[in-house]
């Protein structure tokens, strides 16, 4: 049964199918495992961070720090692997603990000091970017046989598409994210927070624990995204991934999640990412369009989705009264 809350998700899905159909109509070559595999590989880091952003936005918050955290993670890994003999897996664990703790700290500030998430994570954004600069201002290449090994893992699909490890990591992040959000108590509490903080408190939702968890998840996923990004680029650079937090927010909103929180699905974000990737791929295929058209199309899409949500909100509130009939006092 289709409910109004599922409608934005459906619209996103339809948009993707329609857009892909239009693209293949023009460039039949776009309908290939190669393109699909590249879509997943090229957007892996963005997808992972967007999963965390979905948690944050659903709870009615925002996390502006993730782009900087990705850059910090990359530089941290590059510097550690260059200057020490620590194994990459240990370095991964270290950086994940670090970024998760960083997110948790921001969540704690937001909850206990009652600060707006916008300001706290803005400060976090500058802080993480600054920390990356302190480690190194240059682009530090990563040369490690373990990295070569990870990069060499792929599944070659018929048609020549290479599905790489980082794409699989993104898919796993989406599945895990969906499971937590839609099937656990923590997920319910995230939605509750997005529905109203005061009400949640009265209903007994553990606000502190939930808020800290949400930002810890976002921070941790930003760390994971940083690891994936370093695998993708084989380098760490403190100037990388500027503005990725905004791309992630865009993907979440195009995915049908209400920016003010409470409504949305992880699956929507996945298709949001795919739509954004698809636009980029189309522009590459076209060859004559400036890559800035990506931004223009994403801008237009965002606007369309915000209008759609407004319309849906309006439609659901106006039919409230009509449904009274289904209740029968006895």
């Amino acid at each position, binding site marked *: 049964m289709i*409910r*109004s*809350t599922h409608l934005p998700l459906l619209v996103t899905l339809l948009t993707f199918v329609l857009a892909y159909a239009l693209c293949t109509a023009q460039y039949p070559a776009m309908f290939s495992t190669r393109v699909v595999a590249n879509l997943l590989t090229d957007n892996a880091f963005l997808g992972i961070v967007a999963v965390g952003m979905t948690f944050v936005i659903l709870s009615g918050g925002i996390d502006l720090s993730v782009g900087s955290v990705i850059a910090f993670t990359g530089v941290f890994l590059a510097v550690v692997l260059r200057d020490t003999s620590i194994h990459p897996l240990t370095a991964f664990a270290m950086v994940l603990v670090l970024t998760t703790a960083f997110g948790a700290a921001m969540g704690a500030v937001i909850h206990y000091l009652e600060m707006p998430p916008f300001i706290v994570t803005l400060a976090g954004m500058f802080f993480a970017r600054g920390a990356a600069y302190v480690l190194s201002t240059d682009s530090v290449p990563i040369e490690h046989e373990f990295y070569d090994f990870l990069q060499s893992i792929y599944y070659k699909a018929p048609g020549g598409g290479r599905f790489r490890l980082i794409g699989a990591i993104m898919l796993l992040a989406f599945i895990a994210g969906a*499971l937590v959000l*839609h*099937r*656990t*108590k923590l*997920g*319910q509490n995230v*939605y*509750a927070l*997005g*529905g*109203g903080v005061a*009400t*949640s408190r*009265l*209903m*007994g*939702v553990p606000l502190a624990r939930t808020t800290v968890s949400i930002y810890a998840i976002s921070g941790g996923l930003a760390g994971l995204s940083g690891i994936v990004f370093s695998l993708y680029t084989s380098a760490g650079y403190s100037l990388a991934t500027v503005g990725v937090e905004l791309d992630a927010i865009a993907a979440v909103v195009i995915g049908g999640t209400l920016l003010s*929180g*409470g*409504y949305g699905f992880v699956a929507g974000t996945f298709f949001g990412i795919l739509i954004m990737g698809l636009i980029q791929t189309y522009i590459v295929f076209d060859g004559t369009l400036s890559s800035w058209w990506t931004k223009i199309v994403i801008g237009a899409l965002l606007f369309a989705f915000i209008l759609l949500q407004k319309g849906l909100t309006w439609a*659901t*509130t106006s039919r*409230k*009264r009509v*449904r*009274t009939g*289904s*209740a*029968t*006092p*006895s």
Partner: protein
Amino acid sequence: MPDDIRPLLHASGISKFFPGAVALDEVELKLLPGEVHALLGENGAGKSTLIKCLTGAYRRDGGKIELEGVEVDPASTNESQALGIGTVYQEVNLLPNMTVAENLFLGRQITRGGLLRRRAMNRAARDVLLDYGLDIDPAEPLTSYSVAVQQVIAIARAVEMSGKVLILDEPTASLDREEVQLVFSVIRKLKERGLAVVFITHFLDQVFEISDRATVLRNGQVVGERDLRKVSSNDIVTLMLGRQLEEKVQERKGGHAGEVLVEIEDLGKRGMVEPFNLTLHEGEVVGLAGLLGSGRTETANLVFGAVQGDQGKISKRGREIRINRPRDAITHRFALCPEDRKTEGIVGDLSVRDNIILALQARQGWIRPLPRARVNEIAEHYVRALDIRLASLDMPIRLLSGGNQQKALLARWLATQPDLLILDEPTRGIDVGAHAEIIALIERLREEGMALLVASSEMEELVAYSTRVVVLRDRRQVGELTGDQITPSNIIRAIAAEEPAKEATA
């Protein structure tokens, strides 16, 4: 006899102090199993403070709470809920973005291996709600259902989680007549199950319809516990409103009203105030009396355009005028001092001078600022005329006492030289001295020929300055008293829906 039954909940000697005020003074509340107990009192009587002390939202400063004979001390709403005391508030406190079942089970979900079992919860929710007379699909979003249904779901949640005492804080305030019956049918069922239900409302007829007993609070003290089968609504209203009901014959200095200033015809707004007619003369004070929620404030706001009516017209000096917004009203020289001084009146961080000049400057438009000298002149004039006590005109207005803030607000509107001054609870929360001064000021303005419309819950006060009193009940005008008819007991009778005494007892 109720005395033979052991109370389910017995709160005794409950006290709560706020800085500079006693909110609750040794309050006792006894709830019997299987009864609906109304908690009554005017605004500020301490009803909600008492509830908050019972549910642990406030720490009480004295007294003890016994639940089924065992002393309990809830420190938070969660704790009191676990003990068995559930609360449902006026605003539906459920989450609009979640489904009915999710709302019902939030915090106590059915899980297996850490994962939610949605289908099991939907089934369980359906069964639970059937007990409450709701045959609805719990997998639907909460907002698919009407406010009344949502309110019943909130009650179901509270009862399922607590199950001994249910506190209903104005659960019917935003419901219409049939919807109220839906909620009442649920309350009756809970009563049969042996729960003790506390029912708070401003609708007296609802109190008598559903409640067995009532505890009446006034100024933080219990003024009576009554068996509602044995008393009339008149008794209850008298208890609520207070002590001195001796008839004081008011010296009325000339009810000589001047010419008709404002005529209101069929002004109303659906769900807020039913259409009413009102004529205001120059040199006349019309009082608006009624219990809280009877439509006093709403009437005032409607006349001022703070709320836009959906029908009716207003004419001033015989010419029809259009008032859609407060700005229109100000242009026509109307003024309104709102009920909630802190949020709708003062701009706390601005200086007293700026606050006084605000309305006048707003009417002038921002392009034509008042000259500094003129501003000072006006501000100083009113500070002197109204005897506003302050250290300097530059101090932020929030530092003034309540009475002085109120006088500064009056000054703001007097500076615009209004023809019609609307006052909503002009004496709420101010000390006795300032109280008398404001009443004297109202008298003076009337003598100067201004028309005043004053909404107040203080009977004596209305009697003191009104030349006419319009009585409201359930958002409707139900009576008008003039001249010698204006006595506290007549007002109370009109509120309690009895015929006003033909002759005022002198």
